[in-house]
């Protein structure tokens, strides 16, 4: 009889061990992130590929897409991101089994559903990929998809201002496609988000003024002059007066905070039960790059300003998720307590112990995230005479004073009245 009663408990332990192997720990990703601190995306990619898709296909693909982009394989990056898109949309639907498992067993058993800022970043980098290939129409498609995603999921504006930078990039893309009216709409939405969530980038202020002027919206020009100050108008119109073009460098630096697990465990002798709560917390890696500048012919042309700090978005996202995560952790403990009590009634202390062990082994936080994303997105906007430029370089100023200079390594074609958008990505100086 004892052996018959012991069997279910053994099954429970084996089951817990089995699930323990499946639980999306995410900790293995440190081996992917480490080479990035030495600016070795190729090595990071190798580590990712050898680790496989243990955190789900969608997360694997977005990591891969970004690492391929950093390694210079733009076509490969586009393919990976496109493959990820339908998987992420599919994950939007509710899964009863995943919900049940998160309430009774553990978090992170299902497919990965990226939070809003990660979903938007996917389109952001895909747009930069398309621009890299000179595919302005393709970049425009991404701008449209950003707008539809925002409309469909969050009624037009993403939580925590996660769409500001993407709206800004959409404006640049419309400008580059010769559509100043659509560009102004995108910039106005970016402005609305930036204003609600913090500082409005100076470059955006100039663009709003210039586009309002080009579109003949005098009242709007006056409004912006009141809001931004008179000096902005001169800066904004400089490009028009001199029939200049401009290089807009979008620089991604550092690494976004990654999620780690924090476990609280407490044995309650009265209940005869171990309360275990595993919740995610953030680890903030330091962005070793303090600023970025564009250099040509040995001369520094322009410094940067920060468009987005993904650490803020990542923190706000986790804070928003926390109440639901805590409620589910409590629900799991209640389920385990009931199981432990019933096991104690049927099999005595041994049964209760086994259920406690199984429960504690299963309790794990979902610490998956797109942790290869950058910490900061910066912009350097440089007015340039139309023409082809070959020797443009980027200075990465380290917070320790070290400066690394990197050539863009390709020809940059600047057209009059249009922004030429170039993306660069570096984790350390």
């Amino acid at each position, binding site marked *: 009889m004892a052996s018959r009663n012991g069997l279910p408990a053994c099954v429970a332990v084996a089951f817990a061990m089995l699930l323990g192997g499946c639980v999306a720990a995410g900790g293995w990703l440190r081996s992917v992130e480490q080479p990035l601190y030495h600016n070795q995306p190729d090595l990071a990619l190798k580590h990712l590929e050898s680790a496989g898709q243990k955190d789900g296909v969608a997360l694997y693909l977005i990591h891969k897409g970004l690492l391929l982009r950093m390694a210079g394989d733009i076509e490969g990056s586009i393919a990976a991101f496109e493959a990820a898109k339908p998987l992420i949309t599919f994950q939007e639907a509710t899964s009863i089994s995943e919900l049940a498992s998160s309430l*009774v067993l553990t978090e992170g*058993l299902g497919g990965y559903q990226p939070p809003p800022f990660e979903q938007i970043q996917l389109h952001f980098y895909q747009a930069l990929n398309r621009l890299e290939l000179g595919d302005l129409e393709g970049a425009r498609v991404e701008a449209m998809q950003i707008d539809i995603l925002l409309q469909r999921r969050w009624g037009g504006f993403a939580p925590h201002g996660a769409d500001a930078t993407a709206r800004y990039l959409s404006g640049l893309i419309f400008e580059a496609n010769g559509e100043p009216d659509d560009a102004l709409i995108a910039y106005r939405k970016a402005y609305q988000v930036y204003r609600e969530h913090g500082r409005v980038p100076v470059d955006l202020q100039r663009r709003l003024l210039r586009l309002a002027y080009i579109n003949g919206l005098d009242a709007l020009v006056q409004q912006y002059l009141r809001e931004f100050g008179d000096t902005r108008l001169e800066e904004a119109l400089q490009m028009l007066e001199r029939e200049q073009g401009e290089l807009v460098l979008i620089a991604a630096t550092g690494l976004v905070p990654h999620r780690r697990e924090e476990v609280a465990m407490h044995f309650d002798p009265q209940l005869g039960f171990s309360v275990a709560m595993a919740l995610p917390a953030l680890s903030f890696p330091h962005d070793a790059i303090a600023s970025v500048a564009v250099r040509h012919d040995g001369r520094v042309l322009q410094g940067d300003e920060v468009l987005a700090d993904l650490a803020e978005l990542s923190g706000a996202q986790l804070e928003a998720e926390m109440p639901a995560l805590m409620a589910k952790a409590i629900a799991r403990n209640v389920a385990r307590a009931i199981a432990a009590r019933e096991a104690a009634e049927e099999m005595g202390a041994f049964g209760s112990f086994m259920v406690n062990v199984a429960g504690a082994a299963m309790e794990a936080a979902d610490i998956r995230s797109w942790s290869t994303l950058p910490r900061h997105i910066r912009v350097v906007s440089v007015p340039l005479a139309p023409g082809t430029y070959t020797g443009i370089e980027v200075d990465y100023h380290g917070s320790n004073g070290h400066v690394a200079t990197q050539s863009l390594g390709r020809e940059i074609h600047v057209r009059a009245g249009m922004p030429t958008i170039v993306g660069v990505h570096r984790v350390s100086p």
Partner: protein
Amino acid sequence: MQVNAVIRAAALAAVLVLAGCSGAPKVSRIGTDTVTDVSGRWNDTDSRLVSEEMIADMLSRPWIEEHRLNYGGRPAVIVGRIRNVSHEHINTETFVKDIERALINSGRADFVASRDERDVVREERADQDVHASEATRSAMGQERGADYMLSGSINSIVDAAGRRAVVYYQVDLELISMKDNRKVWIGQKKIKKDIEAGAIRP
């Protein structure tokens, strides 16, 4: 007994979860003209239907007869830029090929090679000049110039909320006379799709 039930329920949940992680892809061959809508996005069926209907419309209009009366013979058409201003990455090359096929197969118009194709052909012709026998060599300067250029755009409007989206595609094509820039034909085809994704997944 109840412990068994808990374990059975947990095992069932695990099976459900694990079932979603594995399994070989199931593939079956289907006809290329079978209408298969998987995601609701622009697909091969949309491309084929739009090109066939628009070309049928183009060939039924008076410009083709006017060309025959004025210049004799079949008009030669070249495809210019088909701009994708929709919200999807539509391979306009596939769409252009569908148009070319429908137009050539009608037997009522000729198609001349596009700019990129011409470069390759010219390279080959230059090579022939050096390496091919005189009897088989194609001479320079004998290309057929296009009489008309076909260009246009694929546009879309999306109204989406939650899991539902209504997508409206509009394809505009126009045929412009190379001789005098007259627009001899303008065609428009619209497609509207109501897409509702499931709220529940396995």
